């Protein structure tokens, strides 16, 4: 009965969301004006109903109830508990339910934490959230019901794709969805403000925390997904410009631009239309991503192979919601006059320029992702857009944006002094140039392309990090006042400043890691018998044993690799080649030797008459690629904490 109650709760969530939207729409009629307030209670009830529906599906997975077809297709009795739980969102249907739960829960959070908002705006936001909730929960219920039940139930499940049975990937989808769907609130704020015809500083203050929440989750989700691809797929790469990766990257770029344009709106009452446009765009890209992953137009390790019929339904939802949002924008944007005036040289100008560059980068990613699909749809020709395209389009735009970044952080509002800022950043520029020359010469091994890439990478990474340091130094008056005074100033800095500095340093570290890893990594492949060895860079890798191991739902051959450098033992790596009998699938499990900055990465390939294929990679500075985004997310959290006044938390605490 629990599974059926789940279906009931999903239907209830759909109806409550619909009622939530209708209560706001109905309030437009004067006699029913008081009905708008109902949307608050309905949002809480709808969220609770979706949580109960999700709990029912989770229960079915944990108890291996194969009378639920989704469980039968994506679980197995031998699967460890963690992967039974993660199997809940491991399929199209389950992940849609997760999407609905997150969407409706965000609606409830607007009710709970949005008491500081004007009631008109709050109710309109809830109305839009209700409409989105009804559309997505309706789609899930009628075309992708995760609690659908075959009769009779199969005796055993078909199991989850072994590649998805991984701790990182167990967490990756929830984080990603908390990000994707978080932008629905921002979208709802934009539509509500367009309906009200009032967008100003307050609006920017209200929107920023929600954008930050979604941005932080999306940053973590993308980073975790990238880390999973890095160590699970066994290719040694961490970003492939796969359309599905791009689908998550596009809303992230839009949200990054939105965060910065909202600052300009908050501080200077400018960029109203642009900020609203970005707010609409972020969730539109989230929905586009959902369509790409679920429509069957893409084949990817990340994509759900779903029939086109459901893809068309998702496309219809995308057109209805984004279409309505942008239509409203077209009608109302001209009325959004900007009050703030600023000089061409000012913090606002640099932020605008930065915003435009990020938008150009976003456009190149969008074009690179959609153009091959459109070409295939229109002409039947298959073309692929790969790394060279992005290196020539995305990288230059982002590089210029990064050059401007420290200037924007140090420039004054309204009217800046470029010369003075230049003088303050002279030392940072000098050190960055020196780093660029040293990096290019020492690591470039004389190859022109490597030298150039490393030079630019070190210059940009160093420039962003040192520029951020300069911000801290100026705010704390470091070296100008006694250290204790600097420390006091450091502690007194708003959390948002700490957050900004951390996020920018994270970006700089990421760039350093990405450039050094891609330009200087080494690899070696050989067939080794037990006792055989290969060399990768300065490391000697000896295959000392092959062991058979039995896991909870797999059997594996485990290679024991002794890694030495100059005769000194460095680590023991244990890559595996696993066989999952439930799905009759063989996978490779990468072994990583974590060094402080670098990775030694090992893959055990197929056995042959000449021995076991062993692939060894030396990935210098790979740690920074994942540490950088983590810092960015922590920076986002710090910024978010600084906004607690605007979330009304203090207000409630005083009351209590």
């Amino acid at each position, binding site marked *: *009965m629990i*599974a*059926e*109650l789940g*279906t*009931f709760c999903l*239907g*209830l969530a759909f*109806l*409550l969301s619909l*009622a939530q939207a209708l209560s706001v729409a109905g309030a437009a009629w004067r006699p*029913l*004006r*008081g*009905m708008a*307030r*109902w949307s*608050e*209670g*309905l949002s*809480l*009830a709808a969220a*609770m*109903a979706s949580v109960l529906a999700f709990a029912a599906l989770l229960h079915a997975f944990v*108890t*291996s*109830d*194969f*009378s639920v077809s989704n469980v039968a297709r994506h679980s197995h009795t031998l699967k460890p508990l963690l992967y039974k739980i993660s199997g809940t969102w491991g399929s199209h249907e389950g992940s849609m339910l997760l999407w609905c739960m997150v969407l409706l829960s965000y609606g409830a959070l607007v*009710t709970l934490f949005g*008491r*500081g908002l*004007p*009631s008109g705006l709050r109710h309109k936001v809830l109305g839009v959230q209700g409409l989105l909730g009804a559309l997505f929960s309706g789609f899930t*219920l009628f075309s992708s*019901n995760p*609690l*659908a*039940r075959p*009769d009779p*139930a199969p*005796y*055993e499940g078909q199991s989850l794709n072994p590649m998805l049975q991984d701790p990182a990937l167990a967490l990756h989808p929830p984080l990603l969805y908390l990000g994707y769907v978080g932008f629905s609130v921002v979208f709802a704020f934009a539509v509500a403000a367009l309906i009200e015809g009032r967008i100003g*500083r*307050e609006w920017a203050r209200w929107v920023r925390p929600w954008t930050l929440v979604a941005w932080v989750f999306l940053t973590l989700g993308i980073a975790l997904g990238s880390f999973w691809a890095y160590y699970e797929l066994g290719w040694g790469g961490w970003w492939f410009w796969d359309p599905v990766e791009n689908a998550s990257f596009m809303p992230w770029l839009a949200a990054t631009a939105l965060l910065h344009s909202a600052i300009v709106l908050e*501080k200077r009452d400018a960029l109203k239309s642009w900020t609203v446009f970005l707010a609409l765009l972020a969730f539109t890209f989230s929905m586009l991503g959902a369509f790409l992953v679920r429509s069957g137009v893409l084949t990817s390790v990340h994509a759900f192979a779903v029939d086109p019929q459901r893809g068309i339904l998702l496309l219809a939802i995308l057109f209805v919601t984004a279409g309505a949002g942008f239509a409203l924008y077209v009608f109302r944007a001209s009325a959004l006059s900007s009050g703030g005036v600023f000089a061409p040289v000012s913090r606002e100008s640099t932020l605008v320029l930065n915003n435009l560059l990020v938008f150009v980068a976003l456009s190149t990613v969008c074009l690179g992702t959609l153009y091959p699909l459109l070409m295939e749809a229109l002409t039947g020709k298959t073309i692929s857009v790969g790394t060279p395209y992005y290196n020539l389009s995305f990288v230059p735009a982002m590089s210029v944006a990064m050059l401007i970044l420290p200037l924007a952080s140090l420039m004054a*509002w309204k009217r800046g002094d470029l010369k003075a800022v230049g003088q303050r950043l002279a030392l940072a520029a000098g050190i960055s140039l020196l780093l660029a020359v040293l990096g290019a010469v020492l690591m470039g091994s004389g190859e022109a392309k490597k030298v150039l890439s490393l030079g630019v990478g070190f210059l940009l990474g160093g420039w962003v990090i040192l520029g951020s340091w300069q911000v801290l130094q100026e*705010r704390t008056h470091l070296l100008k006042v006694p250290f204790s005074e600097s420390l006091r*100033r450091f502690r*007194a*800095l*708003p959390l948002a*400043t700490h957050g900004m500095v951390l996020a920018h340093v994270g970006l700089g570290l990421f760039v350093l890691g990405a450039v050094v890893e891609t330009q200087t990594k080494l690899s070696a492949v050989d067939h080794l018998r037990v006792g055989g060895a290969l060399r990768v860079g300065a490391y000697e890798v000896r295959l000392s044993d092959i062991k058979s191991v039995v896991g909870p739902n797999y059997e594996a051959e485990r290679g024991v690799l002794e890694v030495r450098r100059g005769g000194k033992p460095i680590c023991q790596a244990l890559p595996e080649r696993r066989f999952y*009998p439930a799905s*009759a699938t063989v996978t490779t499990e990468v072994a990583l030797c974590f060094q402080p900055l670098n990775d030694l990465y090992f893959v055990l390939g197929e056995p042959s008459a000449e021995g076991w294929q062993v692939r060894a990679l030396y990935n210098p500075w790979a740690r920074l690629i994942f540490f950088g985004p983590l810092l960015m997310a922590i920076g986002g959290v710090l910024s978010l904490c600084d906004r607690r*006044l605007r979330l*009304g938390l*203090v*207000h409630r605490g*005083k009351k209590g």
Partner: protein
Amino acid sequence: MLLFSLTAALVCAALLGLAVAWLRRTPDSALDQARQRYEAFVADLDRRVAAGHTDAALAREEKTEAARALLRVEEAEAVAPVDPRIGFAGAVVIAVAALGLSVFVGKPDLPDQPYAARVKAWVETLNTAPETLEAKPAAVALQQLSGKYGDKPAYWLQLGQTLVVAGDYYEAAQAFKRVTQLAPEAAVGWSNLGEALTLLNKGQSNGEARAAFAEALTRDGDDLTALYYSARILTTDGRYEEARRLYGVVQSRLAADDGRQQTVAAEIAALDQSAQTAATVQAQIGGMVAGLEARLAKNPEDPDGWARLLRSYRVLKNVEGEKRVLATLDRLYADRPAIARDIVQRADRPVGAQ
């Protein structure tokens, strides 16, 4: 259905009750909210000015802006409450529609079937009416008895055979391995193991399966399963006469009315067909190989040709020819071992792989 309807109604009532409870809270007036927001904002600004993080002029401007926003806020217009009967009617519509949806989309009369409960029921059936159980649940129920009978080879044999019928060849092979460990002298464990491994490998007997059949025949030369699969292995290896002889032995051991006679007869017919096709192919490849050999004799500096010749000998299972080519390669490329290694690797790849 009644219990489901009652529970659904309770869930509905609880959720709608939550909504009503939230709405019954006395909301702060809009002006109070705005004033508190303003005070908190000004306090934050003052703190930042005192810490030297905000320009005093900018702070003044922000305070003015916030004060203007406060002034703009008027007491919320007194909104006449909506007739509660509309709310009640809406709640009833939502509850009834949700129930209707779950009947339309779901199967409310279908009970949950958690795996543990199903296994318990299967074990009970195994003890009371085993003939009513299908192979898979029977195997699962048998697996629950491993604690009791885990040291008995007969138990593992029965479990393995049930798993084979259920199509779970991997688990079956594991069970038969236990049989061979507990009773290594019994041929039946080995032959069943070989069969399970062959079925697991989609009908192809790999090295482990071949070894298992060999072990079975060592212990019992009349083991029908081992004889049958050994004949199939010989067919795969192209040793048609030996295969035909073994199939003959199998036929002679089976009773005339045994249904398996038909299977063996079909295998023999397929064997004849394969032998005929193989002979034709052999002749064609033989001609091609002879031509290739002649060409390489004239022009030995042809790595691609050597790779094709080596691959041809391997396809023909001509061990002597293969040895001859390898010896020639060692001699020909003694000073260029990389080329010889490349030729051998290319010969390993199937035709068209490059």
